[in-house]
């Protein structure tokens, strides 16, 4: 559905994308996971035909993003990272406007947005600017969907949204996937990676790894230990001095440690136990 080959883009001195390649199968959720400044938005803008890459090719539904940009614009739905609807128009007017922009009507594709739009329908006379964060996001998704796009591109849709709404949002994406829509989504939250069929880990314009979340976790080369003590920071400093320690970092309530040759030393007053790596651990490991 979407293919990207050797994409490179730089803004003056800054290289936003360095030789990016991957492909996305139709009807899948593909997640691009990476911190701020990884180049996610640039990649989205190239795929949505808003920008041209310095080199490399990309196609959406078999159409080239540079040559066939006009045709691509008919068949994709895009939700930018920033809320980009008309704040002075009401919820209903926004949806109606975007439907007519794509030469369709709300009625025609209502079934597609029904689940999402029903939740904000009680506020349909309210101006978009007066909506809460979660509701704005639902409206933006409805507007991106109203013309029944083949591919949906969501740039950090869950940033700045509360945990409950985030969860809800991902289940909405699952339902859209069942409708046969290919979804490309980016997020800085590692825990959302497992909700995707395929993920690409991205860092400073480079792809670290592209695979299913399960396989990325399975490919973790080391044995990971969780180390729990009284004072995480003091423990971290202590472990960093230890010659047996290959890598260690704080993760949530405890420390994650990898030992050289898997030699686990006995340290007084701390609990050491082996844990299964998460996507975040894989990301940190790949960054090295």
């Amino acid at each position: 559905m979407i293919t990207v080959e050797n994409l490179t883009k730089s803004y003056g001195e800054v290289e936003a994308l360095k030789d990016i390649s991957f492909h996305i199968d139709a009807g899948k959720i593909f997640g691009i996971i990476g911190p701020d400044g990884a180049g996610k938005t640039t990649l989205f803008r190239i795929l949505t035909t808003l920008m041209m890459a310095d080199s490399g090719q990309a196609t959406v539904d078999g159409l080239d993003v540079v040559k066939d940009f006009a045709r691509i614009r008919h068949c994709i739905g895009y939700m930018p990272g920033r809320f980009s609807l008309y704040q002075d128009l009401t919820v209903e007017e926004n949806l109606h406007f975007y439907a007519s922009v794509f030469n369709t009507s709300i009625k025609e594709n209502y079934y597609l947005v029904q689940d999402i739009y029903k939740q904000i329908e009680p506020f349909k006379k309210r101006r978009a600017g007066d909506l809460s964060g979660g509701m704005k996001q639902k409206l933006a998704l409805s507007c991106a969907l109203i013309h029944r796009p083949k591919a949906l591109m969501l740039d950090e849709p869950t940033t700045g949204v509360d945990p409950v709404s985030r969860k809800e949002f991902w289940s909405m994406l699952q339902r859209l996937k069942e409708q046969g829509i290919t979804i490309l989504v980016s997020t800085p939250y590692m825990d959302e990676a497992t909700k995707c069929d395929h993920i690409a880990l991205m860092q400073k314009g480079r792809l670290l790894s592209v695979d299913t979340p399960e396989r990325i976790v399975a490919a973790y080369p080391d044995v990971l230990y969780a180390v729990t003590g009284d004072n995480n920071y003091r423990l971290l400093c202590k472990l960093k001095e230890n010659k047996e320690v290959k890598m260690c970092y704080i993760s949530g309530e405890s420390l994650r440690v990898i030992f050289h040759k898997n030699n686990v030393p006995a340290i007084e007053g701390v609990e050491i136990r082996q844990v299964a790596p998460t996507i975040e651990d894989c990301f940190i490991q790949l960054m090295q």
Partner: protein
Amino acid sequence: MKQFISFVNKEFRHIFRDKRTMLLLLGMPVVQMILFGFAITTEVRNINICTPQTWNYDPQIRIMEGFAANPYFNITGTIGNSQEIDEVFREGKADLVIVLDAQRTNPAIQLIADATDPNTAITEVAYATRIIHEAQQVAVTAIPQGQIIPNVRMLYNPQMKSAYNFVPGVMGLILMLICAMMTSISIVREKEMGTMELLLVSPVKPFSIILSKAVPYFVISTANMLIIILLAVYLLHVPLVGSMIWLSIISWIYILVCLSLGLLISTVAQTQVAAMLISGVMLMMPALLLSGMIYPVENMPAILEGVSCIIPARWYIAAVKKLMIQGLEITYVAKEVAILLLMASFLLTVSLKKFSLRLQ
């Protein structure tokens, strides 16, 4: 078509929901007309004069009556002796003082004016001289041989009202402001709010984005033009001598020029503030100062006169003066129409070319 209508609808909603913009759009022409019509005027009115205490002899009495009857003059005091003349000027009681030679045999009159503002002083003296002159003409029935008295006729504006000059100027200014500034701001706002990103990622053609932005401002500009003409005719009593149809047509051409200017600005500016500054500094100031609205183009140094040639307002104002005040036929403004049409097509082509299909 449905797409276009819904686009235009959206633009009207943006305008109508922004109360401040609405007030600006519809209030500005009224305020400017009233300001330029009544307050900011080059006419000299309410001239305070001080006259001698005694007007004894026949021509002097008639002169006195002439001043008293004239609506432009207010007699604010009398002068007893020459020391008082300085005093009334210092106190600001008089703009003009009339001094008579008391002797009957030598009926000389001296006019003393406050020339701090030279233009005003000249006008005041001219008015006064005319009154004195008229009073004398009644007295002297037979004109002495060999004396030539010019017979002056002020064509098109017999009362020398400044509104005749300002109405076309205000039209040029307001249409420029509304079309250029408002279109550029409304396009740049879409960029600033990020909505342009979504519009670009849709099948909408750039041309229809632009056209749908232009339609509402075109309608509002036309409404403003009508308001200005109504105010001019019924409030300021400026005659509409020429044909209303041709006046509308040339105004629409001018509106087109201004819309394309606004479009051009929107392709350059990235923020609404920048768009406002560019239209304010690069459009408003020249339109105000170099269009001939305030200072005659003929008096400018050659360089500025050259610059004024590329200012659309100059040609529009000249054409409106000819059509509206002088009541000339359209053939007399062919040059202005041609220049404006040329400007419109040039600006429109450049800005359509520059309108980006992608993000910069």
